[in-house]
């Protein structure tokens, strides 16, 4: 357990708690931003700079900006989140999400215990290797993901254009 890891891990968890407890929409979004940045720092620590950059440029730079855009479009700075949080169905969904998440974490921890420490192969986390992963080992997953994105794109166009 080194200081770097502890700093950013605490930062990520703290910001995560702040995200779900903040009463103001944009503050909550900024909490999420902090989570992303802290996670990126942890990825850097895990010798995965490319993933760290993607984390920032895609999650923090694009997806969260979209979230912020929606917040600014639909809410005013004086709106509070309590009103939305009173909705019961969100809470029930949240319970399921948490259960699934805990299951995943437990499984991951078990795997870590079984394998122990593993030394990294050469060039781990470099852009070239990630490209090889994408286009050789996990090509099917990659293509499925791109088809999924295509479907989302077509759906967006369908929703955007009222009459086709």
């Amino acid at each position: 357990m080194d200081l770097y890891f502890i700093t950013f891990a605490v930062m990520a968890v703290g910001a995560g708690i702040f995200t779900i407890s903040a009463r103001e929409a944009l503050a909550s979004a900024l909490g999420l931003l902090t989570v992303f940045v802290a996670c990126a720092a942890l990825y850097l620590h895990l010798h995965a700079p490319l993933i760290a950059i993607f984390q920032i440029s895609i999650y923090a730079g694009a997806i969260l900006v979209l979230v912020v855009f929606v917040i600014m479009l639909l809410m005013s700075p004086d709106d509070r989140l309590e009103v939305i949080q009173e909705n019961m169905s969100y809470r029930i969904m949240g319970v399921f999400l948490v259960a699934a998440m805990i299951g995943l974490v437990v499984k991951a921890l078990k795997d870590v215990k079984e394998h122990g420490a593993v030394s990294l192969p050469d060039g781990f986390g470099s852009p070239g290797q990630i490209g090889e992963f994408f286009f050789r080992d996990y090509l099917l997953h990659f293509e499925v993901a791109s088809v999924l994105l295509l479907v989302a794109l077509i759906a967006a166009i369908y929703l955007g254009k009222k009459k086709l």
Partner: protein
Amino acid sequence: MEDWIIDLIKVVFIWVWCLLIAVVMTWVERRASAMMQDRLGPNRAGPFGLLQPLADGIKLFTKEEIIPEKAKKILYILGPALFAIPAFSAYAVVPFGDKIVIGGKEIILQVSDVNIGFLYVLAVGSMGVYGMVVGGWASNNKYSILGGLRSTAQLISYEVPMGLALLAVVLLYGTFSMREMVLAQQGTFLGFLPNWGIFKQPLGFLMFIVAAYAEAARVPFDLPEAESELVNGYHTEYGSMRLGLYLFGEYVNLGTLSGIMVSIYFGGWQLPYIDMSAFLGPVSYGIASFLVFFLKQAFFLFLFVWVRWTVPRFRYDQLMGLGWKSLIPLCLVNFFITALLVQLTV
């Protein structure tokens, strides 16, 4: 000297340099705009009005710091910092010179030559929007919120063509490191042109420069500020040095974008046709390469000003239309042509 001391010196140097550029740019912007509009501009403080930025700085520092009553206090204070930090940190991977030998030690004139430097620029560049958004939201003013709202949509839209234009460059050079990209631009292209990215990627450069203007929220894409519509957009409610930080951050951003343009499309620190390292000593070569880089950068900084006083602002739907309907398809075309050419020549 130990490595970390050298790194520290480099960081401090580039930080001061950024600030200097920003300071001088405020003067250049006002004087040059005046000259283009048949005026004289600020010419009272010092010779040619060169001390005007200093006077402005003193004014901004000594002004009362006002936080509007209905503003969200913490976010309001956070906004300018969120805007300025990414602007400064993007400079870390821009190579501002080749290398300099001091005391038998070779020093690369770049804060950090990381192998994903290029993506780092994109990632950090996309973070600047939070400053605008937070500032606009925290001011709790309808103009500010509109400015912030516009900035989010605009920056997301133009991130895509910018990334696509740069990806074509990555295909061309086969590396993510900014320094290696500059080194790949040595020599000549087709026998008579300098081997610069602009000649291999003319369309890509055009797309990139348009996207860069939109990313920096400069005229003709200054929708988030839009003086004539939104008072001053996201920083309407700001005053004193908080406003100063926003204005400074903008100019530092311009400096970074100019640096990237020079490094990727204009051969970085290299002079065309002439190999400076052949006849210059190790120290003077380092300084000369830095000066060459700076001159190129200065041209693009001036171009920002020049365009600002030439082109009128786009309407919002035109801005979105240009981004999604023109730039992205053109960038894709450019990308595939580049891929084809790279595949054919390799």
